[in-house]
């Protein structure tokens, strides 16, 4: 395990019933970097992402073998609760999913259930979080309007603000821009690059150019196996594995 490793997967196998979804994955995710997970649908990349904050716990018949270490501690074999884990490892989904509440309440929700009640304190968290994702000026005069009235891109950035409001260490993003227009996509990409100073980011994307633009490391999954991983600038210019080359150049998938 390298010094800068945030997550380490060791001999990780995951089964959904009889289906072997992740096959002996060994992979390190570096802190304060953006790691992109790519591969065709059903290759295991989202499944792998979900093992990092135990989202697979909800799936019936899911069995996990091997180790997933967060800062050297196995997240499946410690007394750390899934709730505590998910505070440290936040997640942003493909479809923006704001709560049917005001902008303010969306951001204050996490801190509130973590016991922060003082209004001034919550006000500050809301402002800081919205500033962090670059939407404070846009939203400050309508904090108490419903989040459902926002555009898709605004909703997604609000969801990211909601995620960072509980001060996570890692932010997982599962195709965060696939439902967004190009301008909103660029804003999320810029935000992700800005965010890596503070957080470790793992992003699943079907957009090769996006992985190429924003990630430091890229991992290519195929049929549950981790086929190739490497510095993004090398992997997209000169992939070592023929399957990686065929996939990223759009020749199968």
């Amino acid at each position, binding site marked *: 395990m390298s010094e800068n490793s945030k997550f380490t997967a060791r001999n990780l196998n995951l089964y959904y019933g009889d289906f072997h979804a992740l096959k002996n994955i060994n992979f390190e995710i570096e802190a304060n970097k953006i790691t992109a997970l790519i591969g065709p649908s059903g290759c295991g990349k989202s499944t792998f992402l979900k093992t990092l904050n135990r989202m697979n716990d909800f799936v019936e018949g899911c069995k996990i073998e091997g180790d997933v270490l967060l800062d050297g501690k196995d997240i499946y074999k410690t007394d750390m609760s899934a709730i505590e884990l998910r505070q440290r490892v936040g997640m942003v989904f493909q479809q923006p999913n704001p709560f049917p509440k005001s902008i303010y309440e969306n951001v204050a929700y996490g801190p509130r259930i973590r016991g922060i009640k003082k209004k001034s304190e919550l006000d500050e968290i809301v402002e800081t979080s919205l500033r962090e994702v670059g939407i404070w000026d846009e939203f400050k005069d309508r904090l108490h309007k419903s989040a459902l009235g926002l555009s898709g891109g605004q909703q997604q950035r609000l969801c990211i603000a909601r995620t960072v409001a509980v001060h996570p260490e890692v932010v997982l993003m599962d195709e965060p821009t696939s439902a967004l227009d190009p301008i909103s996509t660029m804003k999320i990409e810029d935000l992700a690059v800005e965010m890596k100073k503070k957080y470790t980011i793992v992003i699943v994307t079907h957009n090769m150019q996006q992985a190429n633009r924003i990630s430091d490391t890229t991992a290519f999954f195929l049929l549950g196996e981790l086929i190739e991983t490497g510095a993004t600038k090398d992997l997209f210019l000169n992939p070592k594995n023929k399957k990686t080359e065929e996939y990223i150049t*759009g*020749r*199968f998938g």
Partner: protein
Amino acid sequence: MGTRKGYDLELKEINDRVETMGKQVLLAIDRTIIALEKMDVVAANAIMKNDALIDAMETDIEERCIQIVVKQQPIASDWRRLASYMRMISDLERIADNCSDIAIYIKKLASLKTVTPPAHLGEAFSSMRQMVADMVEAFHNEDLQLAEKVVKADDIIDELFEKNVQEIRDAIKADTDAIEQYLDYLFIDKYVERMADHVTAVASWISFITKGELNIMFTDRYARESKDNPQ
């Protein structure tokens, strides 16, 4: 497989056109060698007229590369190829220009009293021609070893260039009435040396295409020449 058929066909088409352009440049060199040997003014004019064809090939390939980049956003080996093609065709076009430059001097020399050309000019010309022939073959077969041979051969041309300069210097001293002709040969000598530099650059892109290693060969002459000499 086969999910990007149109894209693959266009990539192949561009590749074939680059190869054809390389062959046309080789043909221009062959014609230049013969025209110089025979001091053939008609052939020299034909070389210059033919340059428009090679220019058009460059423009066509360049446009195709730009279009495919915009439409298909190539990455990995596809992008390595296209980026290389765009650089290669620029150097190929310069080699063809140099043939025309030499053709101008052939016409000039043909109008003056005949003098003996520098002894190593023919050798420099044929060695450079062999580099271009090897480059075309290395490109066709993606033969890295042959491409490296081309790169190494540049040193031979540099040596021959210096020998020719010395011979021209001696010849001018011996026959001051023929300064014009020898200056023309000096320019031709220099063009041949430049053509070898261009083909070296083209060959060095072959390693980027095949291995992804960016190892462009620039001339080391400036580094050599700029060394402070204490003597």
